[in-house]
């Protein structure tokens, strides 16, 4: 059983796994960090997006071995009701989620965008989120929320 040292939402975490290929998604969910969702297991839908060293990454396509030694942020670590991330505030204000299953991945992808591009255009937002699928059709609200979170009215 190999041990992997991860930094998750600012906390050092040692994870045991007999399988080097175990995806980070299942490591997180076993730690009760269930904001990060399983959607396809193929890296096609974005529901499992987390930040690794600040970059938006599909946790279903990242092995525990590859995540070892890295700093990982999930939606739970991005902000809380007492200290929300601007994207969380904006998603709530804009009443973005319907079922909300894609929301975590949307916010994490958007967080990576905003850390690289403080004032994205709507086209930048669509481009950054094009790999995040939503079936309920919340897209226009997502765009509006990301623009609002960046201090721009969508």
């Amino acid at each position: 059983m190999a041990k992997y040292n991860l930094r998750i939402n600012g906390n050092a975490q040692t994870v045991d796994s007999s399988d080097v290929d175990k995806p980070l998604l299942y490591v997180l969910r076993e730690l009760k960090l269930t904001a990060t969702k399983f959607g396809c297991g193929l890296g096609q839908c974005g529901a499992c997006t987390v930040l690794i060293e600040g970059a938006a990454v599909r946790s279903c396509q990242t092995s525990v071995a590859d995540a070892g030694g890295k700093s990982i942020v999930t939606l739970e670590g991005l902000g809380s009701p007492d200290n929300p991330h601007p994207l969380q505030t904006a998603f709530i204000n804009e009443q973005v989620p319907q079922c909300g299953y894609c929301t975590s991945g949307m916010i994490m992808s958007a967080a990576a965008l905003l850390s690289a591009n403080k004032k994205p255009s709507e086209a930048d937002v669509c481009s950054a989120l094009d790999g995040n699928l939503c079936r309920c059709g919340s897209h226009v609200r997502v765009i509006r929320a990301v623009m609002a979170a960046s201090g721009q009215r969508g």
Partner: protein
Amino acid sequence: MNAPVKNPCFSRRAILKGGALTVGFALTGSPANVIAQGAVAASRTLDPKEVDSFLAVNGDGTVTLFCGKVDLGQGLRIAIPQIAAEELGINVDKIKFVEGDTELTPDQGRTSGSNGIQRGGMQIRQAAATARKALVDLAAQRLSVKAEDLIATDGEVRSKAGGPGITFASLLGGRQFELKLDPKAPLKDPASYTIVGKALPRPDVPAKCFGTHIYIHDFAVPGMLHARVIRPAAVGAKLISVDESSIKHIPGAKVVRVNDLLAVVADDEWNVIRASRELHAQWSEWNGLPAQADLAAALRAEPGIVDETLVNKGSPAAQRPDGAKVLSATYYWPMQSHASIGPSCAIADVRADSATVWTASQGTHGNQTTFARFLGLPKDKVRLIYLEGSGCYGMNGHEDAAADAAILSRAAGRPVRVQWTREDELGWDPKGPPQLIAISGAVRSDGRILDWRTELWIPKTTRGLPNIPLLAPEAAGLDHVTGVNPGLISQNGDPSYAAESIQVIAHWLKDAPLRPAPIRSPGKPANCFAVESFVDELAAALGADPVEFRLRGLKDPRAIEVIKRTAALMNWQARPYQGASRNSGVARGRGISFVHYKHNETYVGMGMEVAVERASGRIAVERVACAHDCGQIINPDGVRAQVEGSILQTISRVLMEEVMFDRSRVVSVDWASYPILRFSAVPKIDIELIDRPTERPLGAGEAACTAVGAALANAVHDATGIRLRTVPFTPERVKTLLNSKA
């Protein structure tokens, strides 16, 4: 942002204290609490004729609503409390909401057909009105005053003249209402509404944005096994053999087999995934699916078709007047998947004498009978508890996953969580059936429709079927329902416009190639696509403006208003369709459609502006305008979200979606082979909601879907002169038509 209603799904407690029911919720996140508290049954009535079934006045000044309809993301968790709070006279933040639990909520029917508010909500409105009248009468007795001098407000009954009131809790004195729902209990005058009609925030939204909302996928019970069902290699294949040694190297992984229901289980989720990938199983050959390329034509020739005339108004004239235009056209809508982002998931704990099933089903109550039957248990020993899943737009895989979990739990002797894969979801969710629609008709030179005849080739719903047949009981060889249920897919086959004669004929098919089920606004996106495209074809044949042509045939002022408002949103200038302007590489056009949903519900006008890239055949929807009249609006932001979602989801269905299959199985089983709409294809959307507070509230979850296909096809016709009659409007299909026209 405040959250007036706490999520009740997660932990619940129903305790009878001196006859008075108090229900408390706490979002603790501890599965043990759910088990312990969920197991406590409240001895209260669930009879939907009784007020106590729907609401309880609690000692702490709150009111609990027990709602048989569930929130699937469409906002009932706020809309239903708004209705009840308004009618009772209490603040909405004093309302607690319990949904879809067969042991706690009355059976209000499935949350489908866009009837959560128009049926479920209205039952609760009447229960609340009955309760308010009872509370006011109690106060009148106690104060020795006339009931008409009193008013219920802010959770109290007070004199209209002012002064302190008596709280609901103290009036009821720890008792239940013990009252039948009074259909004549007076309802509040909508002019006095202070809660209904407000865009109050949905209470589940903050938790969904902080990652603390507990979906069925996130729920767990102690001692639970993780399971993956191994689907057959072909739709009708039988299991020949399983090599259990193929997974013996995976810690804790075991095979569970009940006839052809094959699964692997393990304590650890990743290990069970590995086992499901590595298990060797042999299945029989099966290739009973029809050839996909011939499917549309083959529907006409299926054996056992039963014809039924659904609409027969007027009679076609023996001779058409001079100048009449006579047209006919055939339209096709393919099989489509619900394509939820999270594959189906469920948890079941089945014991020798009882079963508890946590499910994202739209119909926990209806499934009680189904589950009791295949589990061989009395109905009252089977409890289904709703927990929200990933988007539910009809009868998708949620109930199949629940049946998987139930049968596997019984076989394994432990609680079991079943999680479907992406391949399971797109491959095995029940599908929207294929629909072939032929329309012929004639129009007089002045725009009057003479005769109209629609023929539908669609599967017939088996009468009285509580559910579609579920995969697991079938595979396991258990007693289960058989039949077909694609939903009410024959509605809106006729136009809303005046005509000398209208006929709609259903050619009922026995089944569909893949197990059919209702999918958002069942059948009607296709029927309205055909009808409203054909209306445009008639208008084009006359050289008439599509808006003027439609208005000429309508008398209903609400219908006329949504069309006019849609046209105004689009800055519509009257002209005939422009046809192809051949010089540009990108052709632009506009289209409109109108639907009166089921001919007695919501009115929708839909306008679209599209750009068609000639070289690639790619259609970009650039702008959508929609005027929407669903009568009394309970929560305008909730309605708006539903209309936005209906538009975007249906643009996706119309432009991109078709289930692909070979002779054995579905082959479009990932997002590359079953693509859906992405951000880069999202148009600008303008929605105008028409609120009619004195009209009955109508559904808003489906109607807008039905107007999308024709508005899009009509816009492409305006841009290019080509008429798209087969969904999806893929670039290849567009290019072929453009080339054949050139």
